[in-house]
């Protein structure tokens, strides 16, 4: 699923931005996104399964798997790239990529955090799938 998100972002008109295959690891307290402005890093997915329909014969119940994938990029807050706003919207729409597995719902939260003069934007993709026995 991570690769599908990377591919969906790579297919966008990124302009001066680029998407990396690397994980957003950090070194000496500074993560890659801050080191490399305008590079989008996609993290490994996190998931959790919860039962949503319990049945009397147990094994036939249904569960819901929520998978979350975060992507992060950083830009110079003093000189915001001209395509920043449109790119954020486009990346948000990557949740609807046809390459992603069939899901019940696809959501994406966008948050902005300032760290000194760096604007760090995080995309939190959230996919809900049904897990059948």
């Amino acid at each position, binding site marked *: 699923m991570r690769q599908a998100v990377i591919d969906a972002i790579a297919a966008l008109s990124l302009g001066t931005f680029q998407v990396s295959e690397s994980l957003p690891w950090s070194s000496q307290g500074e993560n890659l996104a801050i080191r490399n402005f305008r590079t989008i890093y996609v993290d490994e997915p996190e998931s959790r399964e919860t039962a*949503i*329909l319990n*049945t*009397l014969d*147990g094994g*036939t119940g*249904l569960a819901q798997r929520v998978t979350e994938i975060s992507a992060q990029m950083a830009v110079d807050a003093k000189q915001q790239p001209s395509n920043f706003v449109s790119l954020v919207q486009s990346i948000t729409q990557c949740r609807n990529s046809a390459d992603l597995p069939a899901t*019940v719902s696809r959501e994406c939260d966008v948050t902005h955090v300032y760290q000194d003069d760096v604007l760090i934007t995080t995309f939190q993709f959230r996919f809900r799938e049904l897990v059948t026995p």
Partner: protein
Amino acid sequence: MAYIYPAPGVANVECTLRIHHTSKSADATGLLIPALQDITVNASNDVFTWTQLDEGDKLQVATTSTNSLAMNLVLEQTSFFGNSAASANTAVKSGVFGLSTGKTRCEFDLYLGDTSSGGAGKTVNGFGYITGLAPTVSADSPVWVSPITITVDGAYSVS
């Protein structure tokens, strides 16, 4: 004390409902209904009530009972719509939907589950008709579920 204590997912301990087309003698194997969410056994006696001048309280006598099983189930395609490859006049071939639309009189066995002391449980048996199907799905609940009622023709028997 031996509480009735079915363990969901544990074979031969869990609560099960098996439906036979027409009767057990006609359809020995029957259809084990999968993915039931809950079961309610209804045995509702009608009561005739009267008053008389020499009594300060109403008098009542039980008359006939309306019996039914009410359940909710998650739809499983083969058991709900039937298996066309199965033998004719069986619950497996008709499926729950076919037994309902065909207004087929069925025999059912409801195993209540083992007891808390590990003993074998009781089975409620009877004849009836499947009714009350109302499969529903929505974007927020994207799995088909349906209520199902078996209106019992006659009395329950417990074995």
